């Protein structure tokens, strides 16, 4: 039995020295250490031997197994290391890495959606909620509730697309601005209010490079007990910095919208020339980006907010214009003609 073990050992060592690769090592392992190997058979048979033999054979067989296991493990490590060395030294697996990769179709959001999302994100961070509203509106919400009764000259500020309705029905229109949502939000909630409303608006307007019959606006409204013009300034200044860069300056000038008082227009200093005057800012150094103001007390009264208790500010901006300014786009019609060669750039 002992001779047999010696024989196994010598054969095993002999074969081991001539192994070429990992597979052969596995074959070797099965042959000498596997369940059906001679060595395993011997070890299994140890129990049936005499006590004397059990001691010597058992000890030798176990010793041999442990030796072979160590050898297996050492050889395995050496072969692995050899394989790693081969990766470094042979050209196996060489690829022309300048070949293009396998193309994956890339989807994108429409540029106006990207701008809506980005701007809404800024206002959400400033504590505003995003809500949307109907695009087909009653004259009441689009005009009358906003201090623009029929026959008011300010109606000229919004050329309107009217819906064909049966005679005697309340006048219905495509909203000309997102401001009707000021009324709807205030009708449905109590102060404090802080919302922004993105959405499509419509104008009876011949289209050209700077005019569209459909475009996006974003309305903002904040109403509470102590909202001041300084809060309006601060909020919009913060917005301008986050969207156009922290070095931006803002400028407010008096302007008129019937549903705010005082009313202003906000401009940012030109981010191309830094205020020196260039083509983008028509030489003025300033770029007008939005209209704003303090919510008119008559508007508050109309939604049963007491103007002696509550004040608020509102603002509205055209979103294509913002996108156009940021990317140097000169024709607004590009947005809704949806040429993929345009859409893919954003």
């Amino acid at each position: 039995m002992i001779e047999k073990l010696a024989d196994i050992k010598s054969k095993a060592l002999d074969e081991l020295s001539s192994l070429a690769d990992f597979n052969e090592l596995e074959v070797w392992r099965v042959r000498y250490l596997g369940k059906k190997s001679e060595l395993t058979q011997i070890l299994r048979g140890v129990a049936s031997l005499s006590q004397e033999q059990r001691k010597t054979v058992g000890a030798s067989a176990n010793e041999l197994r442990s030796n072979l296991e160590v050898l297996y493990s050492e050889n395995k490590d050496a072969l692995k290391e050899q394989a790693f060395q081969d990766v470094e030294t042979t050209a196996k697996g060489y690829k022309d890495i300048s070949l293009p990769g396998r193309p994956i179709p890339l989807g994108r959001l429409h540029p106006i959606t990207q701008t809506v999302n980005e701007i809404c994100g800024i206002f959400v961070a400033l504590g505003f909620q995003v809500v949307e509203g109907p695009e087909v509106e009653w004259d009441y919400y689009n005009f009358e509730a906003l201090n623009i009764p029929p026959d008011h000259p300010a109606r000229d500020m919004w050329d309107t697309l009217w819906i064909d309705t049966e005679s005697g029905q309340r006048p219905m229109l495509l909203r000309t601005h997102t401001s009707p949502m000021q009324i709807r939000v205030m009708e449905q909630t109590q102060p404090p209010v802080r919302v922004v409303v993105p959405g499509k608006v419509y104008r009876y307007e011949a289209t050209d490079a700077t005019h569209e019959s459909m475009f996006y606006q974003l309305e903002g409204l904040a109403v509470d007990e102590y909202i001041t013009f300084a809060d309006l300034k601060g909020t919009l200044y913060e917005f301008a910095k986050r969207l156009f860069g922290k070095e931006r300056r803002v400028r407010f000038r008096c302007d008129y919208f019937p549903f705010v008082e005082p009313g202003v227009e906000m401009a940012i200093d030109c981010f191309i020339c830094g205020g020196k005057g260039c083509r983008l800012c028509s030489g003025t150094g300033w770029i007008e980006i939005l209209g704003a103001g303090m919510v008119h007390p008559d508007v508050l009264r109309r939604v049963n907010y007491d103007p002696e208790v509550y004040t608020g500010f509102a603002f509205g901006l055209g979103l294509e214009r913002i996108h156009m300014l940021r990317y140097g786009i000169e024709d607004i019609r590009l947005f809704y003609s949806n040429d993929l060669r345009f859409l893919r750039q954003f």
Partner: protein
Amino acid sequence: MKTPINWLREYVNITLPPHELARKLTMSGTDVGAIETIGGWENIVVGEVVAIAPHPNADRLKLATVDLGSERLTSVCGAPNVAIGQKIPFAPIGAQLLDAENGERIRLKKAKIRGVASEGMICSERELGISDHHEGIMVLPTDAPVGIHLDEYMGDSILDMDLTPNRPDLLSVIGIAREVAALTGETMTTTDTKYIEAGESIVGQASVEIHDPDLCPRYCASLITGVKIGQSPAWLEQRLLACGMRPINNVVDATNYVMLEYGQPLHAFDFDNIADRKIIVRRATNESMYTLDGVARDLSDDMLVIADGMGPIAVAGVMGGAESEVTESTTSILLESANFNAASIRRTSTRFKLRSEASLRFEKGLSPELPLPALKRATQLIAEISGGKIASGIIDIYPGNKEVDPISLTTKKVARVLGIEISYEKIVTVLESLGFQCTLIGAGELQVARPYWRTDVRLAEDLVEEIVRIIGYDELPTTLPSGALPAYIPDPFRALKMRISDILVGCGMQEVVTYSLTSIDTLQRIFPQIAPLKVANPITTEQEYLRTTLRPGLLQVLSSNEKHEENGIRLFEVDKVYFPRAGDLPEERHMLAGVLCGTRHNRSWHGESDMLDFFDAKGMLETLFEHLGLVAVFKPTDDTTLSPGSRATIMIEGENAGTLGELHPRLAEYFDISIHPIILFEIDLQILLTATTGPRQYHPIPRFPVTLRDIAVVVDAKTPAKSVQGIIEDSPLVMMVTLFDVYTGKQVSHGKKSLAFRIEYQSPSRTLTDEEVNIDQQKTLDRLSKELEATLR
């Protein structure tokens, strides 16, 4: 509106350069859009014609000797109107002017005209770039100082302003001058209107009645007899032209001049053509009249007219009538200066599509205090330039005379709106500079009376704006709202839309945004049975109806892009469609639609690609639904916009959520798309929203091993694979079923197909034995055989 700075100077001292003045006006609300410069003439001076001699060689030409102060020069002149004693603009040799023929800048060269050397040129208005007048030389006012540069004498800057509709008072030189005074700390120059009333009393010669005082709060009139109608003096014509108005005759020009100066429209009637010498201000009956533009106008009873003893002679505040128009033969003028109801004027002018200078002012709400001073000024001017005699007295009917209550303003209110304390002294200084009168009635409380021209100021907030627009918004602090956060207003559609868009973008889909308005023709191709909402005043027929489906827009985008796209096109839109509701706003339904076509993979060296097909779109939608936690069932449909055989209704929780299929070739042709196939889907987000609402719970990861079995069954080719799979999935031991092969061909009999499934058996609570799985599988096969006549292959 255009306002020459020199005209402003008559009312206020201006020391600022024009661009600085423009900036101050713009910041305070009077938007100066452009500054035009009159002048920039080189070397052109004021001269006086001192002698005229005939040209020796030409009958039409004259030799005019012009005194320039320092020298006398002779010019060959062909103008018919040249005369001794005239002050004229003279261009000596070397001066720059505009060629009267082609308008180009030229430098005057020494030249002989028909044998006589001309030492310079007397200029026409066209040669100076002032107007198109070239019939004769330009004649300057007699007091023009000889020898001075024309630039110095009549160069000017004109402010071109975009005014806001709340400030009719700014549609006047005086109004702008008041703003300038307040912005620069100057005081207004007051001018006195004085004239001699040499004629008989107007009372007795003419009368005025107001029948509708609500539409005409005030009517003032004066009478001037013995006028001579002719051309206005040059200075007056120049001012009108500078303001963009065309001179007509001295009387009409005077009314326009005073309108530009005071902001009050006036109208001159030929007094001899006023029947019964009687003015009646009343609503029209069903009558008609010819307006000044020669158009017959049908009047209705909501319109205000000026009538005489016979009938209407003017559409009040909008346009005069042809019959009482001032003509060359007019000798007596009845001058009207009145106040009309703003809304009524706007309605009438809108109805007639007549937006005159007068109606544009009246519709904004002029002060009823304005007619009187404007009338006096115009009466004076007409008498001055047309040589008439002014009847004594003025007719002034003023039924709308109302006291205007003062406005209470507290420093606290100012602080509440602006967020900063402004001292009472500062407030008073600013308001008084704008013509308001302030009375202190308590600690920090003022009573403020508005000046008559500020009809727009009504509330304390209006006064706050006046204060801040003058001191400047830069003076205000910058803070953020400090109150509590508002109650949450959920907008579930927005959240769902954003989620869906993100998933689809991840699937390689490009979002598009298309017009909500489209043509009736495209809509009827999709939903012939639905009558969409119509726009009453569409811009084009292509944008006349509100869409009831997103499909036309997507297909149009596809059509316009397919020519220049080499690779597959995958588009989607998530937006609203509009379904009419009787007597109410339409239902604005949120939809998702998409189209896919072209090659599945972009052209590359990795190999040829198949075309995108029905199952690409279906797979994507299944991915979307899985992401949203929804189970969709696709059932056959008969949607005629899709090709038979490749069209499905998408059922979610038993509701019809939309359709998916291959575009019918008829529609592809209509939308001019040549690529094939086009896969299209449109889904109602309301159904998805309802189905995704509610709590979702996680399932523990199974701990026990899976037993895999592959089976292939042969069924009738028309049996839906989903029916076979449904039966297999029915077993409680089956965790997952994957269809991995569909085969028709020689190996199975005709009209049959083979479906191969991998079935995963798994229990959440124990390890399944082979025997259990065998029994279960046999049960499934028995059911398949019984219900679908399926055989094991």
